[in-house]
């Protein structure tokens, strides 16, 4: 084993702890956006797929690389879009806040949302 692999293993080990540390602070009301957000992040396999397709030199490799890029793009684009849609809906309590700040926003966006369901 070369020292190169050891460097990657170091990064891997540290990332495990960062992952657990960051996620343990996520409140349970955001667990679905967390899953969907982390889902979008592993879409970074798109970078790997691009590299593999970009280096392909047989027909088979091209087909496989092409399929990988399509799948990975689905993952990235779908993941971030869905997460954004979800997070857009989480809003703080509006009645209780300072009347000047959030109060007027409520009637403005309340009715269309209510009638839209």
């Amino acid at each position, binding site marked *: 084993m070369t020292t190169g692999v050891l460097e*990657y293993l170091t990064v891997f080990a540290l990332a495990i702890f960062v992952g657990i540390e960051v996620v343990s602070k996520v409140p349970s009301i955001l667990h679905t*956006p967390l899953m969907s957000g982390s*889902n979008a992040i*592993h879409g970074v396999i798109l970078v790997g797929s691009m590299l593999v*397709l970009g280096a392909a030199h047989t027909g088979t490799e091209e087909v496989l690389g092409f399929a*990988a890029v399509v799948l990975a793009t689905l993952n990235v684009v779908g993941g971030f879009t869905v997460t954004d849609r979800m997070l857009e809906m989480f809003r703080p309590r509006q009645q209780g806040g300072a009347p000047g700040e959030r109060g007027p926003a409520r009637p403005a966006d309340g009715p269309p949302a209510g009638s839209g369901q």
Partner: protein
Amino acid sequence: MSRGTAIELCYLVAAIAFILALKGLSSPRRARAGNLVGAAGMLLAIGATFAQPGLAHLALIIVAMVIGAAIAVPSARMVKMTAMPQMVAAFNGVGGGAAALVSITELMRTDAQLTATYKLLEVLFGVVVGSMSFSGSALAFAKLQELMPGRPITYKRQQQINAVVAAGAAVLAIRILITPSTALVWVLLVVSLVLGVILVLPIGGADVPVLISLLNSFTGLAVAASGFVLENNLLIVAGTLVGASGIFLTRMMSRAMGRSLPNILFSAFGSVVTATGEGGSADRVVRTATAKDIGILMAYSRRVVIIPGYGLAVAQAQHVVHELADLLAARGVEVFYAIHPVAGRMPGHMNVLLAEAHVPYGELRDMDEANAKMGTADVALVVGANDTVNPAAHSSPGSPIYGMPIINADEAAHVVFLKRSMRPGFAGIDNELLYDEKTVLLFGDAKDTLLELVGAVSES
């Protein structure tokens, strides 16, 4: 700075952006901004990859990306919030599939015979875990989308057969490590696809949230493995972040169900129930009440706790329940929602559904918080939930759900169940609380009965 260094630097910035995206999720206020930071990091990483020296087939790459985006955007935009779990499963599965393809294609390019053993090991891990995630997610999607029965599917000698397939995959992997062969890696890929299917078949119903979280973590690990294969730090960091956080979330979910992860994965929980079906409690008496009575009861309460379950989501009743809560709040009743960690079809799903109906997140209480206040509540309104309020989890050691943390609806002064029928919940266990003398039931579709309650409260 050379071009290579600049690209690496971009990858580093992207990795930091991903960590910030996850960190942003620690508060609902910063979460959306965090997600945008993550998306920006992803764009940067993709842009930097286009600048890689010697990247061929640029046109092919762009065409593939356009196809992917053209499918992803409309489906992600149009999916209903109730269907979110299967959407996440689908996007997760394709990620796993891509990771498996990346690993195997890289192996073909470099020639298996000349590949070092440790590298081969990385490839095999990526192929096995990525393929399992792909086929497992596809099956989970089919279950959630109701393309097939959502209950656990069992067959004779299931565990033994599954063990044989798993052992076969292990033997095959060892064989490949000893005498490398790309053809055998393809065989292993197919076996792994089968493994993913037989892993998911016996898991159903209320265990699906745990499963989705586990599959998410699988894809993360497969991506990390591809990162090792391609010697790319960004893939390693991002994949590992997701893999580790997914396993953490999975453990948290199984703890919320009072069961171990192996028990959830291998016990085909709930499958016996479908055999015995309904009934069994036909001779016992429950008290029903009219919407008017319940409306008055709630209108003159001081504190009402709403406990939503998946039945609420199925009936698309989250908007009506919010209307009812607002109406009560306007009368001076204190209303909050008690959310069980596994309510819904994926971790935290119920919170998203209520957020969709514009329920402010300040009114959502997690289980511990809700239980602390339950003793002072006048009414616990249980909408489309059952197992998550079943006191058998505390009181009967023989019960399959014994030990599962529940929302203690039984501590409220009155309990109101809005139920479709007397059918037991997913776990198939009778709920003693239904027969308690402080409990009343109102039968019907959650949306209809809630609308009746809205009418009753506004009249009283």
